[in-house]
């Protein structure tokens, strides 16, 4: 089977037009790949561009140069040049993403937010909700919150909704941006367990974990991002 995710010579900079066109290089010459069943962790100091890399891999940030090759339904797709429609399909079926913060949709319940990635792929609403309930109870989210929109939830509660949403599908690639940052020890354990399960299922995981304890337990490999820093070279 092809390597699910290959990043090759990727470079990224921001042009700050509102600051007189200042060019802000972020990273360059990023090269790595993630194998199926492996959890790679991006390491390096804050501001080294770890989050930017994840966002590029999700198609959220554009890429200046280089390739992001994703094995999407048996075909290799370069996300760096893919059109929006392809990116949306890759997100629906291939790359999952757990962001740091939950983007809340007014009036949609926590349960439906978690279930949505499944219904978007054609699972019946009942089946999707049943799976969402399993995940939310595994993550110890109080049952009385399930039918409420998460706008008023605490940071930790929102993050658990976010994790459940990210983990509900069987995407072959999963990107994790500090999924355990605002969780207590008990729920951290749950998330670590969920990551282990994903690995066993052959999912390629790439994450950012500031919590050293978590990092050491889940990481098969650390990719040091400071080596890609564009500022050092500039």
């Amino acid at each position, binding site marked *: 089977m092809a390597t699910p995710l290959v990043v090759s010579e990727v470079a990224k900079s*921001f042009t700050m037009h*509102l600051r007189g066109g200042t060019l802000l290089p972020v990273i360059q010459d990023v090269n790595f790949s993630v194998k199926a069943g492996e959890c790679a962790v991006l390491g390096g100091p804050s501001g080294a561009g770890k989050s930017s890399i994840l966002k590029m891999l999700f198609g959220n940030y*554009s890429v200046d140069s280089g390739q992001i090759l994703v094995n999407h339904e048996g075909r290799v797709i370069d996300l760096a040049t893919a059109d*929006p*429609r392809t*990116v949306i399909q890759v997100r629906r079926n291939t790359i999952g993403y757990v962001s740091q913060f939950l983007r809340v949709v007014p009036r949609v319940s926590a349960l439906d937010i978690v279930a949505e990635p499944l219904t978007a792929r054609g699972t019946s609403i009942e089946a999707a909700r049943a799976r969402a309930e399993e995940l939310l109870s595994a993550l110890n989210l109080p049952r009385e919150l399930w039918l409420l929109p998460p706008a008023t939830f605490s940071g930790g509660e929102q993050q658990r909704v976010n994790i459940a949403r990210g983990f509900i599908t069987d995407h072959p690639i999963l990107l994790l941006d500090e999924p355990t940052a605002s969780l207590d020890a008990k729920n951290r354990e749950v998330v670590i367990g969920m990551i282990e399960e994903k690995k066993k299922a052959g999912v390629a995981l790439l994450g950012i974990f500031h919590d050293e304890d978590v990092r050491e337990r889940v990481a098969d490999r650390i990719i040091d991002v400071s080596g890609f820093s564009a500022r050092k070279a500039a």
Partner: protein
Amino acid sequence: MSELPLLKVHELSKFYGGRIGCRNVSFDLWPGEVLAIVGESGSGKTTLLNCLSTRLTADVGSVEYHMRDGQYRNLATMPEAERRFLMRTDWGFVHQNPADGLRMTVSAGANVGERLMAVGERHYGRIRETAGDWLGRVEIGLDRMDDQPRAFSGGMRQRLQIARNLVTSPRLVFMDEPTGGLDVSVQARLLDLIRGLVQDLGLAVIVVTHDLAVARLLSHRMMVMKDGHVIEHGLTDRVLDDPREPYTQLLVSSILQV
């Protein structure tokens, strides 16, 4: 990936005398896709919307629509009878001001039922049942079915306008600032409703808005317009989180944080 675009727009331009309405706009719209056109007042977004929906005639370029029979038809050369039939069956148009899209002096039920009667439905009971069903979907109580929209609040009118448009199961809906002029809480409800309907029905939507939050919530893809030109075009969250053009950066940085 084997499916075909619903709308193919090729180098569309519209001039008002010497002034540019919109210029050289090209894109494809796919079934089920929501495209937001953003920009400030006067940027040409409404002109573009009107050219796409044949409410205005473009000076240059073409708009082709994938008809239900599988053929692509150039909208500019389509006979008017056929175009108007298309507009009231396979298309919807949601105006910013609901009074522009509703018949204010006939009941809510008749407003929704009109399109059915226009395509030949002649059974009162069935028309009423369908209209009631749609009022329910846009959260208007059945007890308001025989009231005129004059007696409705702004948010209700807008929801009624949406029901009126969707009753014939269109494949493409144009929306011009659908949440403009509504209270924030009413906006949120309406946005959520539109979002749900678009997902459930697999509608393709072209929505014009100056509100980037609306664009983010509703759309898959967005085009940023300035002075009649499309200056940036891409995945909605990409354009909003990593804007490339100076104007887009200004637009994004001008959003008030609550």
